[in-house]
């Protein structure tokens, strides 16, 4: 059972069993849905902002252990950051998943435990699902703001 223990570390299982930030926020600034074409899983993410700062994130939807744990860890890692910082963090996590850089624990917090997923290409999509949802939401909001100016 050696190899797989990277994928199913205790920390990941913990976030899977007791997901943080699960649910839907009442008055979100950002609402976004993302689906994983491989398994059909859908994720719903809501975000509250104070100016440019992310004050709260919530996620709901069906998913495997990896996507659920990842959404939980992502929320932990992102809350409190500005949207610009969040985009950088997301990009860092994307690079970790694609083996372009080593994971930086200071930035990622518990999500650093997901690094081992990058040995399982199909599951990378599971790990990235919530992060890509948030990125989509942040970028869409930026475009909307540009246009409403």
């Amino acid at each position, binding site marked *: 059972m050696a190899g797989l223990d990277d*994928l199913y570390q205790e920390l990941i*299982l913990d976030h899977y069993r007791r997901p943080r930030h699960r649910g839907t926020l009442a008055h979100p600034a950002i609402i976004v849905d993302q689906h994983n074409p491989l*398994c*059909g899983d859908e994720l719903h993410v809501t975000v509250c902002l104070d100016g440019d700062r992310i004050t709260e994130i919530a996620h709901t939807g*069906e*998913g*495997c252990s990896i996507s659920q744990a990842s959404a939980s860890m992502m929320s932990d890692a992102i809350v409190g950051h500005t949207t610009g910082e969040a985009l950088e963090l997301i990009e860092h996590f994307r690079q970790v998943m694609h083996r372009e850089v080593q994971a930086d624990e200071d930035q990622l917090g518990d999500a650093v435990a997901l690094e081992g997923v990058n040995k*399982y290409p199909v599951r990378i999509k599971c790990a990235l699902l919530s992060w890509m949802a948030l990125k989509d939401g942040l970028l869409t909001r930026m475009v909307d703001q540009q246009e409403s100016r």
Partner: protein
Amino acid sequence: MPLAADIDARALRADFPIFAPVGDREPLVYLDSAATSQKPTAVLDAMDRYYVETNANVHRGVYALAEEATARFEAGRDAVARLVEAPREGTIFTKNATEAINLVAWAWGVRNLRPRDVVLVTEMEHHSGIVPWQIVAEITGARVVFAPITGDGELDLDWIARTLREAPVRMVNVVHVSNALGTINPVAEIARMAHEHGALVLADGSQSVPHMPVRFADLEADFLAFTGHKMLGPTGIGVLVGRPAILADMEPFLGGGEMISDVRTDGCDWADLPWKFEAGTPPIAEAIGIGAAADYLRHIGLEAVRAHERALVAYALDALEDVDGLRVYGPPDPDRRGAPISFSMPDLHPHDIAQLVDRQRVCIRAGHHCAKPLMRTLGVNATARASGYIYNDSADVDALVRALHAARAYLGG
């Protein structure tokens, strides 16, 4: 333990090099043949022999190497035609089953479908039997309508009969055996109804031709599509069987070398069947490979294959009841189903199931099985699917059940 007297799966495995033991590595429990089958040495050798002994392009060279290549290539076609008892001029090589269906959708559909015409597909159709029609419908203004399924995962034949009476249905695309539910559909019955109303019928045999006796004439369909890699053959080849009279009336699909008899600056004449539908250099090695696969299957006997798999499915349906809360989709009666068994487990996502049973080198599939409309009907995003073949036996099912127990224990629940 052999399941039926007909096939000794353990013994057959010796024909499949991927099952050869390597050191003290755990043996491979391959239960994903609905996605792609393993390949016997006979198939790999036939292809290698072509490349090493007589590699040349076909149909045009006059030198001995090329003549021999052509002979082996066309013998591959004969073997495939023999397997489903189809006329050789109606046996067309494509790159996979998907291209075979697209061939009909584009070559026949684009030129024959009119606005508001209906193409009837089923809710349990594979994406390859849906999307080509959606694309061609968009171009022509035709509509794609989905035949619903019953709670047991069978087609609602009354609904189909009614729709054929009431709507201008021009084509029915029906999967012979569902890759996601296992259901064996009554193609001949549906074809008879469709023909009464002037609709053509395309049967998707991707999951039936490898697993049971399929005679083209008995299906009563106008077209039959299937694919090499699921029937012990190589990737890169599929087959469209069609009634020669219909194929002869159709304009070609892909244009290029091989499929013409003359090309002028002001137009061209088509080659005879089946070559009219085979543009460019065909999959030569692959045709030789699928021919060897067809011969291998005929040698074992498709009746025996079917008996073996029916017994395997019956054993598996029984054994899976051992797993707490496990739910199997599709018909409960093994007589009404082919090899694939889709299932779900409470609180255990199919991805996690498949990943965790792989620890014991048990290979099963997780996902929507290219059947998203069906998944929506079933009310799930994905299922896990185990699918056996001639090289699997009850020990493989036992290994799966043990691995499922272990997965449940590991991920808690």
